[in-house]
């Protein structure tokens, strides 16, 4: 059993508790134990905090990292925004002495010191990594194959970019999450401008909602074109934008899409036999029923 400190983030537990439940329960079946990271704060949100005060962003992220350092466990997380903050700050502090010293100066106030002893992983990459889990294990764990469904993937910007600071290979034409979707028995579908932002990130949603949902709407047009039954992602914030965004699109533009949006862990939960109630799918703004009807 591989053990990780599980960094929850904010959106998953508050808006989509099913993501949190699915992550813990599905991983356990795949040999990954997610341990509670007690005392964790907001990651903090890279766009919102990073744009205002970088030092605070570093220091708060460092504090979260230190909680895991004390547990002597690597961090696993399920949100691209958290990944940006926690992963990137960890890498930066490890490699930039001056930055580390500045942050440690702040951390002195709470008797802590960043040492750089752990690594940070997105749960999706752990599931894909054959040394930890791998596609075959995922395939073997499936009891309710998602056969007959067409699922499109949204990777999310903070997971894949900036390219220089990531390790996922192609940032323009990635395909590994599609492989993970196929492992659940579903048919992954490609669509135009796959790597376009969800519309929310970088504070755009907070600053200019119409602009944000305009981008989301463009994604919806491209997804409808390839007749996707559902969209999956690995980021609750992207999920929020695609899910609640469809309601906002309806309000502002008068277009109704009705496309179910599910976190990959929620899909994995369904494929492993978890019930929609267990996954709290009723909390989604756009009903997942049309999708569920196809598989259940």
């Amino acid at each position: 059993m591989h053990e990780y400190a599980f960094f929850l983030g904010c959106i998953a537990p508050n808006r989509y508790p099913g993501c949190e439940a699915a992550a813990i329960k599905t991983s356990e079946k795949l040999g990954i134990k997610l341990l509670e990271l007690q005392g964790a704060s907001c990651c903090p949100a890279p766009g919102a905090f990073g744009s205002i005060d970088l030092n605070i962003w570093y220091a708060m992220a460092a504090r979260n990292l230190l909680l895991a350092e004390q547990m002597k466990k690597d961090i696993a997380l399920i949100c691209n925004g958290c990944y940006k903050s926690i992963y990137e700050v960890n890498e930066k502090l490890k490699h930039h002495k001056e930055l580390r010293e500045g942050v440690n100066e702040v951390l002195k106030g709470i008797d802590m010191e960043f040492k750089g002893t752990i690594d940070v992983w997105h749960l999706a990459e752990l599931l894909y990594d054959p040394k930890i889990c791998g596609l075959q294990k995922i395939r073997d764990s499936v009891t309710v194959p998602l056969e007959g469904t067409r699922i499109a993937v949204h990777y999310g910007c903070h997971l894949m970019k900036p390219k220089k600071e990531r390790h996922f290979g192609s940032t323009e034409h990635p395909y590994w999450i599609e492989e993970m979707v196929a492992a659940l028995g579903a048919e992954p579908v490609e669509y135009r401008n796959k790597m376009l932002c969800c519309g929310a990130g970088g504070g755009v949603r907070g600053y200019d909602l119409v602009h944000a949902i305009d981008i989301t709407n463009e994604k919806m047009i491209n997804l409808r074109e390839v007749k996707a039954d559902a969209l999956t992602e690995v980021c609750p914030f992207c999920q929020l934008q695609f899910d609640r965004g469809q309601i906002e699109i309806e309000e502002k533009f008068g277009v109704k899409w009705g496309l179910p949006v599910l976190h990959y862990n929620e899909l994995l939960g369904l494929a492993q036999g978890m019930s929609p109630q267990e996954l709290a799918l009723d909390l989604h703004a756009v009903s997942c029923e049309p999708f569920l009807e196809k598989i259940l």
Partner: protein
Amino acid sequence: MAEKKTKKETAPKKKETAKPAAPVKTAAPVKTAAPAEKAPAKEQKEARIGVFLCHCGTNIAGSVDIEDVQEYAKTLPNVAHVDNYQYMCSTPGQGKVKEAIKEHNLTGVVVAACSPRLHEPTFRTASKEGGLNPFRFEMANIREQGSWVHMHDREGATEKAKDAIRIAVAKASLLQDLIPKSVPVEHAAMVVGAGIAGMQAALDLANAGIKTYLIEKNPTIGGRMSQLDKTFPTLDCSQCILTPKMVDVGRNENIELMTCAEVENVEGYIGNFDVTIRKKARGVLSMEEAEAKGIVGGGCNGCGDCEVVCPVIKPNPFEMGMKPRKAIYIYHPQVVPLIYHIDWDSCIKCNLCVEACGDKKAIDLEMQDELVKVKVGTAILATGYDIFPIEKKDEWGYKKYENVVTSLEFERLICASGPTGGHLVRPSDGATPKKVAFLLCAGSRDSTGIGHPYCSRFCCMYSLKHAHQIIEKIPDAQPYLFYMDIRSFGKMYEEFYYRIQDEGAKFMRGRVANVLEDPTTKNLIINAEDTLLNRPISLEVDMVVLAAAVEPAAETDKTRKLFGVSRSMDGWLLEAHPKLNPCGTTTAGVFLAGVCQGPKDIPDTVASSEGAASAASIPIHMGEVELEPYFAQCIEEKCAGCGMCVNLCPYQALSLVEKDGRKVMQVTEAKCKGCGTCGGFCPGGAIWMQHFATPQIIAQIDAFLLGGAK
């Protein structure tokens, strides 16, 4: 065909070089032997050193207190005269040196000025004209290593100048007369690479009466230029202006052309390079080779009967893989030499071609690589370029989307002799594209760390040419050029740019963020920013052409190491001086032509090749070159004949000989590079490194550490 000095032998294919059967001539005879001065000379007379300080305008005087340094220099041991001047390198400055030598009866001269790389030759000549042996001159660098790096620290720069002068005086006090040796220069040259650069250089050398070996790794000469359709800005057909030169190269009596050949090993020095060339097994005999083997009227006549029967089909690299070829093939109908060749990786040795060839008996499926040794006086590298693998910039979708092509692929698609007979088509469906986008600076001027930071220099111009070509060939065609800056720098280039603008090409200043494919139509959507209008653009086109960056050809690194040539930071071969010696290298006798030194268009390539040919012909026409006399010398009375130095020498310049009943080391001076490996090692202190002798170096160290020469 082989020249007298050419020794041939067979060697197993793709294996280590076999040792030559006949020993290579070890060294050229020394023409003017110096009076042997084997033992460290005893001080003939007391050293009297003249010190001359250069202001270099304010370059030195701005940061170094010349007056202070002058007063200091007067206090140094052995210093008989100190002077300073605004510009020591000027005629009056040199005059000061000459006069002082006579007037003060100087035994040594120190000039404290710039780097010896700049003006050591100047002051050596001045010393000689003043009646002193030129090797009694020593330079103290107080500019590049002094005033320039300590520009804002006058006190520190002044102190450092004093140190440098004290050290130089200490060495100058112990310097000896040396006489340079001359060695004869082989009346032959070598050019590596037979693209337009190598061809031009070889033709110039050959026409100047010099036997020239032209080495090309491909089965034909012509290089990249033969893949091009038209040339800018004149729009003449590339092949039409190139093939006459190719034919000239093929029939020039002074050029010995070796295709399918690579340089395997290089030994020796300017005037006397011993080069081993691997002639890779071509599988097909030329008519001359057949005749030499006694096959009357045999050898390849280029009829192509073999190609017809060959059952293997592979993509032709000359056509960028867009046209099929057989396992036995030629790149294109105009190849020089017109001899077929076999791709051993795809040949299945079915023997059909051998049967088809019949009595000509040109095909030998068991042919082996051959090692050929030649001796040349000078060499020119013209190894050219490759296209940067633009798929690394995955935002533009090359190799992902069928209708995204590189400029070189476009050249073949628009070329009348290309795979489509000059009809531009989309790879996805064979349709004629109407809207074509050209992405300039694709991988050039790229600071992301994926592409190259430099400008590839000819992409702007050929993209303008491409725009013109589609307007000319396709009714209602619309080219779009996405650019950062249009660099139309050459003669008639700017005029060409205006012409293409008038013809209707659209120019968008901005880098392309990404290219997306519409999966149903295979059209491409370009997302970019128009930085002139300050707005994002999204444009749907039929085809995208990437003007991919260029980078040094893959084998360049191997070749440059054989010839001892350095690279600059960007990977291109390093010239001796970027402005004043762009064709030379730091290895005497080795020169650079064409793009291997940095991106160049055809006119600049030809100009650089003619420059390299001219430079390479000078030592050959002079007939001899002077070698700096920094040789190791054996002090025979101290030599124990242990032979350790012989094994250490990287240049095989040392040997043990019998003398007076015992063994002593002997130096082949023409081979010695003065590296000092032997001198530093010799346990008995029996090796004297001329001009860098142990006492001289110890004196320098003492002067630095103890503050005064002994």
